[in-house]
């Protein structure tokens, strides 16, 4: 087992996407030089000793561009060679997802993806595939998420052809072996049994339900009944209905030759016929359900209160998105630099993990939230700090320094979005999948650079709404409901027993 158990304690945990922007960088083969000279200064200012006054020129970098081709059956292929290491990686994004799960078979998409990988193919048994892949030290994975599916092959250059044949077979001709379907169902049931074990897992899932409603595709959960009802035939049908070449975007990176690769791809995918591809549609959450505030708790015998405070928010395509992302960055999204981190953790010592997050997609209402874990006796103070900091974002402009810091951090770390061929290609795949323009990130960057303090305050007022706040606390019940009472009428969420 090469992923080892190891004990180490980190000063902080990195959370995904510093600014909460999923695509915080550019895709194209542009020179990544952003001339924010007024803020960044010039090399001439360089003073070696004092970190406060050091100035450096923005690094210049010409990231390589990927080539985009389309097979006759509609499969889109991005290719970017990178010959440093003798490896080839193929990632696929599939136009499917759990948003398609029927209400009485929640878990169907997830299980289809899982058993596509484990259930063998028309040509090989599950055991033969596992044996061969592990002997080649190749990895294949398949997983279906809410709005898309993904599959990947990671293989040594010398084994490319064999790896690709198996990979293509699993995508096109999965066998859904009965015994592997049975195993996947048992594992899913065990997952249900264990999902109330940790307060961190409970608070995440219950908060999604509190925002979207328990039946919404962004919050609904598997149940023993839904898993029990899923049959092998359901998986076969779900695969047949949703996985088609014209719904697949392939990203190929690594040590290969472009022409030879295209020939190989045509060989394994070329005769796969087109199908009808579903367009992602996520139902809106009814206005009346999410416009109101709410205070809820889950009783679990814990030493800390696990807190989530927030509400639904805009989509990624909203004109305010960039400004909201930067407002969130300053409020709590940027760890050390953020107000919540400084206030709740550094100045008050009340939490190890604290911050705010913005998660937006192009399909669905997003989530904006503040979060922390703190001992019971400081729970009320932490929620008060959340509200106070949110109000401050609304009632006064951020400082010039805060805005400059947010912009500089963005501009100067831009280069990290181009560090590998695979990061460049997967960004292109994401944008195409979501129907966003190739220069989407340039657009975002240009907007960031132009933001003013007034913009930030305007969107804070519009999109951080105290009257809509939904508060969820997982912790020790009776006392918890008392400390939450000052924020509104407190109701308990009772978890159904899972075993």
């Amino acid at each position, binding site marked *: 087992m090469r992923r080892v158990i190891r004990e180490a304690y980190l000063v902080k945990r990195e959370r995904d996407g510093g600014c909460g922007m999923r695509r915080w960088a550019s895709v194209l083969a542009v020179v990544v030089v952003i001339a924010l000279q007024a803020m960044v200064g010039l090399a001439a200012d360089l003073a070696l000793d004092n970190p406060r006054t050091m100035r450096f020129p923005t690094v210049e970098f010409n990231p390589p561009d990927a080539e985009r081709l389309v097979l006759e059956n509609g499969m889109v292929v991005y290719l970017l060679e990178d010959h440093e290491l003798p490896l080839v990686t193929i990632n696929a994004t599939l136009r499917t997802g759990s948003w398609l799960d029927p209400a009485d078979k929640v878990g169907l998409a997830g299980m289809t993806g899982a058993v596509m990988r484990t259930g063998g193919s028309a040509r090989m048994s599950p055991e033969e595939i596992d044996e061969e892949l592990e002997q080649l030290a190749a990895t294949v994975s398949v997983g279906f998420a809410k709005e898309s599916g993904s599959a990947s092959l990671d293989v040594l250059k010398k084994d490319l052809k064999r790896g690709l044949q198996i990979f293509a077979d699993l995508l096109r001709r999965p066998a859904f072996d009965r015994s592997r379907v049975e195993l996947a169902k048992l594992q899913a049931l065990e997952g249900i049994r264990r999902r109330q074990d940790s307060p961190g897992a409970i608070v995440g899932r219950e908060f999604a339900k509190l925002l979207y409603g328990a039946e919404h595709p962004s919050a609904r959960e598997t149940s023993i009944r839904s898993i029990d009802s899923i049959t092998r035939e359901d998986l076969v049908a779900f695969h047949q209905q949703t996985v088609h070449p014209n719904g697949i975007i392939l990203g190929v990176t690594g040590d290969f030759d472009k022409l030879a690769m295209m020939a190989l791809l045509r060989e394994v995918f070329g005769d796969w016929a087109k199908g009808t591809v579903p367009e992602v549609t996520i139902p809106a959450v009814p206005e009346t359900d999410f416009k109101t505030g709410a205070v809820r708790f889950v009783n679990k015998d814990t030493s800390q209160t696990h807190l989530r405070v927030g509400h639904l928010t805009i989509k990624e395509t909203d004109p305010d998105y960039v400004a909201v992302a930067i407002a969130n960055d300053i409020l709590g999204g940027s760890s050390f630099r953020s107000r919540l981190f400084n206030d709740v953790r550094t*100045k008050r010592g009340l939490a190890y993990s604290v911050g705010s997050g913005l998660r937006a997609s192009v399909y669905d209402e997003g989530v904006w939230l503040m979060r922390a874990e703190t*001992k019971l*006796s400081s729970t009320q103070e932490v929620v008060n700090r959340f509200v106070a900091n949110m109000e401050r974002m609304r009632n006064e402009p951020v400082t010039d320094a805060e805005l400059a810091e947010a912009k500089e951090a963005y501009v100067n770390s831009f280069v990290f979005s181009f560090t590998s061929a695979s990061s460049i290609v997967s960004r292109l795949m994401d944008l195409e999948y979501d129907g966003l323009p190739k220069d989407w990130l340039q657009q975002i960057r240009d907007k960031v650079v132009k933001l003013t303090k007034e913009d930030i305050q305007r969107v804070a007022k519009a999109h951080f709404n105290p009257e809509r706040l939904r508060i969820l606390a997982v912790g020790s019940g009776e006392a918890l409901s008392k400390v939450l009472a000052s924020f509104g009428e407190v109701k308990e969420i009772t978890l159904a027993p899972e075993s």
Partner: protein
Amino acid sequence: MISLARMRTVSSLILVWYLAATTPTQADSPSLADRVIEHKLANGMTVLMVERHQAPIVSINMTFGVGGVNEQVGQTGLAHLYEHMAFKGTRTIGTKDYEKEQAVLAELDKVGTELDRREREEAALAYTEGKRAAPSEAVQQLQRRFKDLQDKAGDYVVGNEMALLYQRHGGVGLNASTGKDITRYVISLPANRLPLWAALESDRMAHPVLREFYKERGVVMEERRLRTDDSPNGLLYETFTSTAFLAHQYGVPTIGWGSDILSLTPAETEAFFKTYYGPNNATVAIVGDIDPKAVIALIEQTFGKIPAAPPIPALVTEEPPQRGERRVEIEFDAEPAVAIGYHKPTIGDPDDFVFDVIDEVLTEGVTSRLYSKLVRDKRLAASVLSDTNYPGVRAPNLFVIAATPLAPHTTSEVETAIYEELERLKTEPISAKEFERVLNGLDADLVRSLRSNSGLASQLAFYQTVAGSWRYVVNARDRIAAVTPADVQRVATQYLIKSNRTVGVLVKKAPDKKIAAAGEVAR
């Protein structure tokens, strides 16, 4: 593979095999071992560099040979608390006016230490008298004075300034971690920002200031609650590990026992820094778009000025041989799990390489013995994993197998099935095919781990610190390739026995409606 043990992956032996540079998989790329440039400063600090010019970025990993093992009784958690304090700044960073701040901090530390002492005394007295008394007037006075000083000190603070500077300059992945053996500080930067790093890091190696001490103690307590007290696996591993080690410091949680954390003082934290954070106890690995000559000049100009510290104190306590199985249960409102550990020698010992093979054969991948038997075929377990170097590598450690049963099966059934497979290791030689799979997997993973500058920097600094030289990794792959089926049988027979075993079992306990006491003084 499904992993339920969610502890940090600080390191593994994976990188080793690629650095060996003899594998057919990368015959056409130049040997990485030839690309490592080593430089030692007069004050003892070690610098390791690898040039990679794919993008104008650089990853830096600064590793100190200090961790939980270096703590004394009553001060557990000190190494980790210091790691947090290292982000509080220096005499120039993080302060508005160090001259004035210094006097307030000195007074605050004195009052805080006295207040801790008096509160403990009164708590002990209340305990012997069997009643809870209100704090005495003297303590209340100290509390007021303490709060006053703390507010005053706060006026001088520029919060998180060091991190802010890194972020402004485009730094990503700023972090630090403390383990049993080592403490590390990591950052990735646009490549031309190395002078910023050198200025900040040499400053904190020379002149750190322990500001906001008592606040950070509170933060660490919250971290303990989050990672250990509220985490079924956190509690399982803490209890399991302290059962396996009776004498050695490996048995003590790195985060520290709660009572110890709340008793740590600025004075002992400062002393800990002076003892363990000299340049002679530091290795920095720098990987990316660099010019090694310029880097050496920069580091000589900055870190080179810092005097060497005295050699760090030797560790004397050794774990006595285990004489009989130890079993421990941990009750929690969570589904069951089991951890099984066997004492074994550590890196450098010939038998350690045999354990690397055993580890892979048992749990790496879905065709591994334990996964295919327990999870796929018998369906007794939902997950199974192993770790051959738990919880550290500088002293003899444990080979650990951990599993979660698949209901309705029990931990006891899972244990029995695991032991059957361990017996098989003793009686049947592993097959040539299994061995080939192990080596192929290791070789390929090594190539993969090179995709990341930070991963490479981490591995180089790690082995330099725990094995004395990063070159350890060059030899390790050949040592593993030389392991024979007979070695596996011999080592399994010698170590994987009941009397050398510790078993920790997580037992489901129904939710307790009683409310947790909020006994801690909030500062």
